[in-house]
């Protein structure tokens, strides 16, 4: 049952073949059994989960159920959930029980899903390997010597290891897509503004976007139907007509123009990843798609631009963690300044401190124009590259990551190497474009490879269609490490 798709679970619940309580108990048992090894969850709260399952069973019994009612969903620990410890992977929030629900959590609650637990993540979503979490690293279920990716590493691991049918993630520079790729699952970052950021602890506000992580494109569509929607509490939330993201899943792909940016197929991509991607593109050719070479001349600047803008916003966003009102506070201090210094020195890990320092630096008087303003200009140029590319093609494809999952500890001492694992993904955050990753095979050491699909703005339904059609003729997405 733990391998079932959301659609299958949904119909089994509707047909009363299984209750939400049984389903929830099954996944709680799997978490109990496997989480000590994988460390995918920071918090599990059986009482709350089972209470939600019982409530879902009542909804199902009374015929008020929606498509996802009763289905357990793992929530990234970046989403504030009322009554739940919400840590964001940091010691700073190791005692923070949220008094309120994030917009995303509210939408899931309204849909009647069960919160099966809060997943591990890089501290404040800053990392690409889940090794910066205060709550310990997460292992890749395909190979426990490998990282699961990050920052949504716990979510990716939980779905891959079948500890949850689906999960939420957030993506600031690739934090949904990169761990999805490294763990062999599907994940989508929607167009910026579609998923409410209210209650989603901010890393870099202009880049952060929540999205689902699941076993298949079809599951992602059902999850997007819940997650997407206008939220008046988020000024960057978009007010648009409600869409059914599953509406186009069955469309044939004949005539689809797939843009292949030559910059993404150049030096940097490892051979094993390249051959898996080429095989996937062959499948698309079989489906009737046409390959068109496009160019994104400024795409190479994504990483430097990203590592100016994201830390700049983060340095300000993380100022509220000062020990005054909630969260960690140093035990002894001599005065206010000392309290701030000790609290933040103790509460934040090395990577978070590094980014606060970079961000503070680039916003400082005398450096602002050279870094922040210049990066904003380049951000526009990168967006223009994509606009130009979409004149020639319908959708863009490439590798999600340059390599398969690297080993735990392999890059944790080298931030630059770590940052480069987001080389293909961060452009979608800088431009706000929707992007996803789906599993397309295995590379070295039998570790998964992800295909990166970047759509034009608001083309999520088309992207899911493109991914789903591939998943109809292949079975990479059905393979699991357990």
């Amino acid at each position, binding site marked *: 049952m733990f391998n079932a798709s959301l659609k299958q679970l949904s119909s089994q619940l509707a047909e009363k073949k299984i209750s939400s309580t049984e389903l929830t108990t099954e996944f709680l048992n799997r978490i109990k059994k496997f989480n000590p090894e994988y460390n995918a969850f920071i918090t599990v709260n059986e009482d709350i989960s089972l209470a939600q399952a019982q409530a879902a069973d009542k909804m199902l019994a009374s015929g008020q159920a929606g498509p996802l009612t009763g289905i357990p969903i793992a929530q990234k620990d970046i989403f504030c959930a009322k009554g739940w410890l919400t840590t964001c992977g940091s010691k700073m929030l190791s005692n923070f029980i949220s008094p309120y629900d994030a917009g995303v959590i509210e939408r899931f609650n309204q849909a009647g899903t069960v919160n099966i637990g809060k997943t591990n993540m890089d501290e404040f979503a800053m990392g690409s390997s889940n090794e910066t979490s205060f709550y310990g690293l997460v292992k890749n279920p395909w190979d426990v010597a490998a990282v699961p990716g990050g920052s949504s590493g716990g979510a990716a691991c939980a779905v891959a290891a079948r500890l949850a049918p689906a999960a939420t993630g957030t993506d600031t520079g690739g934090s949904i897509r990169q761990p999805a790729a490294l763990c062999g699952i599907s994940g989508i970052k929607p167009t910026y503004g579609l998923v409410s950021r209210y209650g989603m602890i901010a890393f870099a506000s202009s880049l952060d976007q929540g999205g689902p992580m699941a076993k298949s494109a079809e599951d992602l569509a059902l999850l997007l139907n819940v997650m997407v929607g206008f939220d008046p509490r988020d000024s960057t939330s978009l007010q648009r007509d409600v869409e059914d993201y599953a509406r186009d899943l069955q469309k044939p792909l004949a005539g689809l123009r797939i843009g292949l940016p030559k910059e993404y197929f150049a030096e940097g991509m490892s051979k094993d990843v390249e051959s898996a991607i080429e095989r996937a593109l062959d499948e698309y050719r079989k489906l009737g798609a046409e390959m068109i070479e496009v160019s994104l001349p400024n795409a190479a600047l994504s990483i430097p631009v990203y590592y100016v803008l994201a830390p700049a916003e983060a340095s300000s966003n993380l100022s509220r963690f000062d020990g005054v009102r909630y969260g960690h506070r140093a035990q002894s201090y001599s005065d206010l300044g000392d309290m701030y210094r000790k609290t933040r020195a103790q509460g934040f890990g090395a990577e978070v401190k590094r980014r606060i320092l970079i961000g503070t630096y680039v*916003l400082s008087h005398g450096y602002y124009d050279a870094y922040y303003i210049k990066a904003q200009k380049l951000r526009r140029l990168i967006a223009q590259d994509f606009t130009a590319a979409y004149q020639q093609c319908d959708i863009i494809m490439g590798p999600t990551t340059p390599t398969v999952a690297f080993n735990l500890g392999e890059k944790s001492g080298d931030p630059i190497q770590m940052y480069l694992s987001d080389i293909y993904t961060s452009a979608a955050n800088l431009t706000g474009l929707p992007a996803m990753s789906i599993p397309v095979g295995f590379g070295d050491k039998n570790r998964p490879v992800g295909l990166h699909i970047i759509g034009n703005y608001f083309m999520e339904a088309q992207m899911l269609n493109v991914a789903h059609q591939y998943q109809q003729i292949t079975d990479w997405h059905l393979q699991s490490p357990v």
Partner: protein
Amino acid sequence: MQWEIVIGLEVHTQLSTRSKIFSGASTAYGAPPNTQACVIDLALPGVLPVLNKGAVERAIKLGLSVGAKINSPSIFARKNYFYPDLPKGYQISQYELPVVQGGSIQIQVDGVEKNIRLTRAHLEEDAGKSLHEDFHGMSGIDLNRAGTPLLEIVSEPDMRSSAEAVAYAKTLHALVRWIGICDGNMQEGSFRCDANVSVRPRGMEKLGTRCEIKNLNSFRFLEKAIDFEARRQIEILEDGGTIRQETRLYDANKDETRTMRTKEDANDYRYFPDPDLLPLEIPQHWIDRIKHTLPELPQVRRDRYVSEFALSAYDASALTSSRETADYFEATVTQLPAQAKLCANWIMGEISGQLNKEGIEIAACPINPEQLAALLARISDGTISGKAAKTVFESMWNGELDKNVDAIIAAKGLKQISDDSAIEKLVDQVLAANAQQVADYRNGKEKAFNSLIGQIMKATQGKANPAQVNAMLKKKLAE
């Protein structure tokens, strides 16, 4: 050397919205600590700001009232610094593109008109309050005020004396209340001034180094602080010293300013556009709609009082010092169109004096404009003297006889003797009884005239119409 003082003011006006600028929490003053701070004001993890439309509307009103440009878009920026009463670790303000740009305000000092240019006015949120006295060895934080909407109105360095600065502050204070964007309550901090003061040798174009004085919460402190600061700077310069650019605090108890922080230890606020708030676009039709809701502005009304009622510029200014006063005046003068000056005198004299004495606003005045007009009508038709009117006024103020003017006049026997023959008789009697003084007057002793008037008034217990007595006496003495 002759020194010239140069002053620019930054005024923080608290906008009169019911909820905060970026959250739905109440802005009401005086609630128990932290009872009006919601998750957004507390800056819990994950919360986001949403701009209060009412705050923007009030900023637009100010902009339209001072002839400024309304910027669209304008940008909200984060001003980053750490302080316990600043929950997010940054204040949301406006930096490069404020909502209101330019404009000017007309002031009057000693009857001289002057135009003070505005640089800008920008929207921002207030911080909370640190309570250092209430907890032994600790500080309390009250975040009720955090997120209260402020409009910071910045002037150009166009003022040349503390009197001009006070006139500007008072005019602005009246304006923001007039257009209903701020309650102007200075005790509660709804209208706070910072003054930038520098001095330079008269005739020099280059501005001197300025100091910013904070914490000026009354017009009197504003005046005294500027005077002290200008003196301090002049003394330093005359002793051959130089002025250090710094922020200074005014201590009202000692009547002095002292260093709060120097430019060297000023924060680098690392302003950058707030990514949580989109650029603020203000469509022209919204501006037009707000324009229609604006009341007649004080400047316009002042000019109208001069032309329509032939009042002096001074009187017209005084009457337009607040919208309530001006409305009171207009309601009174409608009843007595030919007696505008009399109405003005009484409102600025008796009414305002009594209000001040009792510390109440004109809106709460126990005598309404119709009642005042009834009283003034009895002066102008000669029924009572100006002096007797003050007695009637007092009775009305105290609510006697339902504030009925005629009933009070009758009850107190204040009706004037205005009958010519009666007055002639009185004058004759007094002249007959004071032959010596009559002789003195005729010998050129002017004083004797007043003494004779006094005698007549005494004989009538002050009820004789003074103008008539005066005329009659002159006539008789000339015979």
